[in-house]
C-alpha cells in the first residue's frame, strides 16, 4: 500500500504543471477572443493526448496521470478542452478498438472531438430525439462522440460531424459548451462492454473532481498571498483569525477532494469496475460538495475587488460550478453510492 504518487508520477506532475501554466489564463482579459484550441498544439506535441490510448489492452498511462494533468489545467484555468476532447474521447474510442481508425487524426491534433452529453449534462447522451450538449467542442468543426445502445443491448461508440453547431453561453468562461447541429447520421464504431463504460465514467468523474481540486487550490493560494499584502486596520488581513479560519477550512476542503481524487484516479484502471466507479463517485461527491462553497469563500476573502468581472476569482467559481454539474452533482453521486452500498431501490 503506497498512497503517495511515485517518482515518475512526480516528474509527470511537474511536466503537467509546466504545460498547463503555458496554456492557462492569468487575467480575465486573457480570455477575450482567445481560441481554446490555442494550447492544443502544446498538448499534442507534449504527447499527452495519447495518455489513454490502449495498446495490448492497457492504456499508455493510468488515471493518475490524467488526474494530475486535469488538476494542473484546472489550476491554470486552461480553456483547452483536454479532459473531454483529449483524455475521455481517446479513452472511449480506444476501448472500442478504434475499428474505423479515428484515433490517428485525433492524436495528430487535426481532428477535434467532443462528447455528446444528455441535456442534463449528467451522462453521455445521444439517444434519438434529444439534442443534448457538446462538451469539449471549441468550433463548429470536428466530431461528437457518444455511445449508442442497440436493440440487441450491444453498446457501440459512434461519431458524427458537428458542422453547424452553435456555441452556448457556458457558465464557465474557460469551458465551452456547444449545441449540436440538427441531427446528422451517426457513424458507428467499435463495441464497448458495460465494464468499459463504467471505467470511462469513473475517469470522467475523477477528471472533473481533479480539475475542481486544481482550480480551488490555485484560487486559495492566490487569496492567501493577497491576505499577506492587503492591509486593513493597520494590519494584514491574513492576520485576522476570522480570515484565517475561512482559509483553513478551504484548505481542509481541498485536501479532502485531493485525497479522494488520488484514490479514484488510481482505481480507474486498478480495481474492479464497480469499485472504480464507487471511488470515482466518492471523489466527485466530495468535489461537488466542497467546490462552489470553497470558491465562494475565496471570493469573500478578496472583498469587493473579488466580486468584479475584472478579477480572476469568479473564473474559479464558474469552473467549480461547471465541474460540479457535469456527470452529476453531489446528490446524483450519493444516490448511486447508496444503491451500491444499501442495495438498489
Amino acid at each position, binding site marked *: *500500500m503506497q498512497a*503517495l504518487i511515485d517518482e515518475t508520477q512526480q516528474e509527470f506532475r511537474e511536466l503537467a504543471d509546466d504545460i498547463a501554466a503555458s496554456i492557462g489564463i492569468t487575467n480575465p482579459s486573457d480570455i477575450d477572443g482567445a481560441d481554446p484550441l490555442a494550447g492544443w498544439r502544446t498538448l499534442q506535441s507534449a504527447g499527452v493526448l495519447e495518455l489513454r490510448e490502449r495498446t495490448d489492452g492497457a492504456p499508455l498511462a493510468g488515471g493518475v496521470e490524467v488526474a494530475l494533468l486535469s488538476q494542473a489545467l484546472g489550476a491554470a484555468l486552461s480553456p483547452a478542452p483536454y479532459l473531454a476532447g483529449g483524455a475521455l474521447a481517446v479513452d472511449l474510442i480506444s476501448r472500442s478498438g478504434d475499428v474505423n481508425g479515428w484515433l490517428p487524426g485525433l492524436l495528430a491534433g487535426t481532428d477535434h472531438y467532443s462528447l455528446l452529453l444528455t441535456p442534463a449534462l449528467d451522462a453521455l447522451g445521444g439517444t434519438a430525439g434529444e439534442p443534448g450538449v457538446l462538451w469539449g467542442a471549441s468550433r463548429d468543426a470536428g466530431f461528437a462522440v457518444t455511445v449508442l445502445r442497440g436493440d440487441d443491448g450491444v453498446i457501440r461508440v459512434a461519431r458524427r460531424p458537428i458542422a453547424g453547431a452553435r456555441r452556448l453561453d457556458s457558465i464557465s468562461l474557460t469551458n465551452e459548451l456547444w449545441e449540436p447541429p440538427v441531427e446528422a447520421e451517426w457513424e458507428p464504431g467499435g463495441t464497448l462492454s458495460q465494464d468499459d463504460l463504467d471505467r470511462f465514467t469513473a475517469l470522467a468523474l475523477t477528471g472533473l473532481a481533479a480539475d475542481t481540486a486544481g482550480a480551488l487550490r490555485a484560487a486559495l493560494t492566490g487569496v492567501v498571498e493577497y491576505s499577506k499584502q492587503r492591509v486593513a486596520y493597520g494590519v494584514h488581513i491574513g*492576520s485576522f483569525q476570522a480570515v484565517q479560519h475561512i*482559509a483553513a477550512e478551504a484548505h481542509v476542503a481541498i485536501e*479532502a477532494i485531493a485525497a479522494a481524487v488520488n484514490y479514484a484516479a*488510481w482505481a480507474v484502471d*486498478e480495481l474492479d469496475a464497480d469499485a472504480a466507479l464507487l471511488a470515482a463517485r466518492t471523489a466527485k461527491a466530495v468535489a461537488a460538495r466542497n467546490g462552489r462553497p470553497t470558491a465562494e469563500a475565496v471570493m469573500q476573502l478578496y472583498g469587493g475587488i473579488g466580486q468584479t468581472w475584472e478579477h480572476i476569482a469568479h473564473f474559479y467559481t464558474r469552473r467549480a460550478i461547471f465541474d460540479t454539474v457535469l456527470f452529476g452533482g453531489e446528490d446524483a453521486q450519493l444516490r448511486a453510492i447508496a444503491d451500491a*452500498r444499501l442495495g438498489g431501490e
Partner: protein
Amino acid sequence: MDYRDSPEEAEYRARLRAWLAENVPAPHSGERTNAEIAAERLAWHRKLYEGGYIGQSWPVEWGGKGLSPTMDAILNEENGNADAPSLPAMVGYIGRALQMFGNDEQRARFIPPTLSGEIQWCQGFSEPGAGSDLASLTTKAVREGDEYVISGHKMWTSAGQWADWCLVLARTDPDAPKHKGISAFLVPMDSVGLVLQPIVLANGDPETSEVFYDGVRVPASALVGQEGDGWKIAMTTVAYERGPSDVGAISTLNKQLARLERHAQSTGATADPRVRLELARAYVRGEVVRLMALEQLSSRATGKLVGEEGSVAKVLQTEASQALAHLALELHDADIVTGRAPDVVSQYFQTRPMSVYGGSAQIQRNVIASRILGMPRA
C-alpha cells in the same frame, strides 16, 4: 501509487481477519457501566497484544515488529469491520512519546508493559488555566536532590481513574520563556500527594478527571528527555493524537457506519431517499478520513515525521464522527428521547468533545492557517 495490499500486507490482513473471527467478543446489548466498558477495552488491548497487534509498527528493539505504518491502517479497517471493541488509543500517542523521547532505561522499563496493557497511561497536560494555551501551565516541578517535587492542578486527565501512570507536564524553569521552561515526567497514579477527582461528562460517564498534585515526589529518573524538552514532547504527543489511525478512529467510524446502515435497513428507513443520501454522505466522509490517513501513513513509511498535516485529518475526522452521530440520533427517532437507545445518545455526547480535545477545532484551524498556509500572525 498503489492502494492495493502488497503481498506481505495481504498476508497480514488475511491472518488478522482469521484471528479476529476467532477472538472478537460477542457484542454487548443493553447498558453497561463505565467500569465495564473500561474493562472490556483493557481485555481487548491484552488480547490484541497476545495476538501481536499492539505496537506492530514500532521498532523491533522496543518490542514492536518494525512493520510498515500502513499495517496500522489495515488493523484499523479490519478491527472496525469485525465490529471489535475499540483499539487502545493511548499506546498510539503516549506510548509513542516514550518510545521517541525516553532514555533506554525508561524504554526498557515502560514500553513492554505499555504494549501489553499491564500499564495504562493517562495524559496530564491540561490545567484549569491552560487548555488551548497549554504553554501557560503553572504546575511546577522543583528539583530537590535526587527528586522532583510536583505541585499543581491538572484538568481533563482522561481515563485517569483507570490509569497506572501519567505523562505529566510541569514547569521546571519559571524564568524561561513560557514554551521553554516546561518538562515532562512519568508519574505513578498511586503517588502520595496525588488526588484524583472524576469529572462526569455530558453523557453521564466519568471518562475524565481532575488531578491534584500536592508535593508529589518522583525520582529524577522520572524526567523524560532533558529539562525544557516538555513542549517538544507534548507537541509530538498531540501530533500522534490527531492521527485517525493512531487513535483507532477509522476502526470506530467503519463500525458505527455499518451498524447504522444495518439499523436503517432493519427499520425500513432506507426506503427514504433522504436517508439514503445521508448514509451515502456518511460513507463519503469516512472514506475521506480513511484515504487521508493512508496518505499520512504512506508518508510516514518513507521516514517522514508526523507534522501539521495531522490537523487536517483531525478536522475531517471530527466532522465525520460528529455528523455520523447526528445521523444516528435522527435515525433512532423517538427512541433517543425515551431512553430506548442509550448507546446512541452516549455515542452522540462522546463525539462532542472531539472538537475540543487534542487541540480544539479552532486551534486546528489556527495551526493550518499559520503553519501550513503561512498566514501572518496577529
